[in-house]
């Protein structure tokens, strides 16, 4: 009996052990890394914000008042001026002079996010219930229905973000309808802030809610995927020393903190993407600042076996790009989604004329594209008739070559051409116009 009991206990132990070892264990080093897609803004980090025209977005203030006019934000020239000048300056100040991130990030510091808001209208409404800010899901929807879509003079204001400002107790609340939604934003405590001339607080919360309307998620935790890799999470520390010992403190506008004065390049790209019409209907409120201009491709004319990287200058914020190469049998990689293309020849023996092209998606404003001609690998013989790039390299270069009809090759005014080769033969019809430059090298390039 003792043997039997011992055997059974041993069996239980073995079974428990086997049961536990069946679980899978994976590396947990970075469980929140996002996958690469064309809308992964981490692929567009080299964008230069200063080349993006400032987009102006229209907003409308709706002030909720009590019917007996006690405890109300007043409707007079002073209060209207406070909204249209002081508060608007504070909001736009946050857009135009941002600080660098406190927490470690791969993002460069971006001072100007190239977005501004303009005040279209101010409306005053009297309703005791609506005057008091409500946390419920339906509060914003009800306000939008009651004071926008049901009002004859307001329903047509569809190119503006409607911001409802109400009161409650001492705590400042806010809410946005949805990511990319122009319909409504709510914000509380406007009268309390007005009484003490505090534009800092309302500008903070309105900027935060406008961030949601322009597609930004919270950055505070892994519970909320914000689709940006350069926004570090932080350990539930919402304010310095509140509660005591709380550190470190984020200053990202989409985090919960007292300063709210920083944005990353990924976040700024996402906002511009939404404002171009990439998602939602917020782009209806953009009244100026969209200018479709092709960036320039920057990179070498010649690709050797080690490959080359092509970047873009003047790519605007929010514009996504895909790239491709031709002919496809020249390269190991022929397509990608990013603002740079790192391409490799398929082998060291391939050689000839190729091209890298970028296609830019301006969302509701269409697409544009630009290309660059290039040379791949080693070329034995090259006949040059027209000069469409700056560097030509081959073992034997003829210009104009016998294949050129007519027999001419003209380096025009302002053009600079370098020929690299073992033997370079210039035939009749070769010409360098006044202002053009011409250089010959017999080494270098792909050997």
């Amino acid at each position, binding site marked *: 009996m003792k043997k039997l009991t011992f055997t*059974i206990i041993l069996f*239980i132990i073995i079974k*428990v052990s086997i*049961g536990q070892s069946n*679980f*899978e*264990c*994976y*590396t*947990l080093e970075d*469980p*929140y890394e996002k996958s690469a897609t064309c809308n992964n803004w981490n692929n567009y980090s080299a964008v230069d914000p200063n080349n993006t025209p400032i987009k102006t977005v229209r907003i409308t203030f709706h002030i909720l008042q009590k019917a007996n006019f006690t405890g109300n934000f007043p409707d007079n020239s002073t209060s209207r001026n406070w909204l249209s000048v*002081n508060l608007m300056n*504070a909001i736009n*100040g946050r857009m135009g002079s941002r600080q660098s991130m*406190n927490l470690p990030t791969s993002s460069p510091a971006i001072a100007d996010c190239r977005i501004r808001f303009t005040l279209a209208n101010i409306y005053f409404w009297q309703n005791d219930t609506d005057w008091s800010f409500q*946390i419920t899901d339906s509060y914003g929807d009800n306000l939008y229905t009651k004071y926008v879509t049901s009002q004859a003079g307001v329903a047509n204001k569809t190119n503006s973000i409607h911001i409802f400002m109400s009161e409650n107790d*001492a*705590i*400042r*609340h*806010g*809410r*946005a*309808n*949805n*990511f990319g939604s122009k319909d409504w934003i709510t914000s509380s405590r406007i009268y309390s802030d007005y009484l*003490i*001339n*505090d*534009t*800092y607080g309302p500008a*903070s*919360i309105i900027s*935060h809610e406008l961030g*949601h309307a322009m597609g930004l*998620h*919270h950055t505070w*935790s892994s*519970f*909320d*995927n914000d689709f940006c890799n350069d926004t570090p999470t932080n*350990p*539930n*520390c*919402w304010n*310095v*020393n*509140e*509660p*005591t*010992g*709380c*550190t470190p*403190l984020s*200053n990202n506008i989409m985090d*919960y903190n*007292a*300063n709210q004065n920083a944005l990353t390049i990924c976040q700024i790209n996402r906002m511009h993407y939404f404002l171009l019409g990439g*998602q939602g209907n917020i782009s209806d409120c953009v009244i100026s600042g969209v200018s479709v201009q092709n960036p320039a491709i920057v990179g070498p004319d010649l690709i050797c076996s080690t490959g080359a990287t092509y970047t873009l200058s003047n790519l605007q914020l929010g514009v996504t790009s895909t790239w491709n190469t031709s002919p496809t049998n020249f390269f190991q990689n022929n397509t990608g989604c990013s603002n740079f293309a790192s391409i490799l020849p398929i082998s060291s023996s391939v050689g000839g004329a190729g091209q890298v092209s970028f296609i830019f998606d301006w969302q509701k404003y269409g697409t544009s594209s630009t290309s660059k001609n290039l040379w791949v690998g080693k070329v034995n013989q090259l006949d040059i008739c027209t000069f469409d790039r700056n560097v030509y390299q081959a073992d034997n270069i003829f210009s104009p070559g016998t294949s050129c009809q007519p027999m001419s090759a003209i380096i025009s005014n302002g053009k600079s051409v370098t020929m690299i080769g073992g033997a370079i033969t210039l035939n009749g019809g070769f010409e360098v116009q006044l202002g053009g430059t011409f250089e010959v090298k017999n080494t270098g390039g792909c050997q």
Partner: protein
Amino acid sequence: MKIFLVFILILNSCLVFGQISWAPIGAEWYYNYREGVQTSATGYYLLKSIKDTIIDSKECKVLSRTLVNSKGISFNDGQSVIYYNSLENKIFRYLFDNFYLLYDFTKTAGDTIVIKEPNSTISYDSIVTVVDSVGIETFPDNIQLKLLYVRSVEESKFNFGGKIIEKIGNLGFMFPFNSLACDAGCSLPLRCYNDDQVNFVSQEHDVVQVPCDFVYTDASLVKTADLSVYPNPFTNSFTIKNGIHGERILSIDLFDLYGKPILHEDHPLSKDHEINFCNYPVGLYYLKIKTGSKTFTFKLIKNNNIQ
């Protein structure tokens, strides 16, 4: 002897497969409750398993939902019902007369889990998550619980990402939450979980070392009648008015947002003491005033000069 063997084998099965229970009566989840974007006023949100119930022949648990705000006032926020399918190791939530998947611990890395949006009766309104990784965490008494790390992968106002522990649930919130609603009050993340087997304090909560039922009132909301600082917000200077009977201010310390000391003064003489602050950037500052019996802390805002 045969009966004894059968008994032992059943017991064996129970030990291996029945050791994990979800929401035993009395189990409690304490979540942090933030009252807004720009306040440190904090209460907590309590889920508590209060009774068993049977729905569609399924043995379910009823969870009470209670919000306790930063002033310690309780609000009944209704009830939720969950069902644990122990054979499939899945948790379901009862919503709109149907059971919807909440947790699935059979999933592995790369798998997709689709979860119902909690406030929509439309069946296809759902949150799509992927499992980034899985694992096991060992608790005292050698209790081993499965882990899932999941991430929302589609744009939605509802979120359900982060770390999920068997028996404890999502360390953000038990159920999917509307991220946008958080700006007006938000019950996450988990502070503590306890039942008769497991006592768990979240690492995120542990950072601030406070009890599970801790509430915190924003210092700027406390009115200090006898000691005031005005104007606040200020532009170039502010004044400290000492109206405390029979007590003098011993020292004044001003810190920036990051706790860096900006200014220190001992024994200011006047009862209305003005501090010129025009050479510092706009932003938020903390003013600490020490009297003989007490220390007061004020949150000050310096505004733009254009006002």
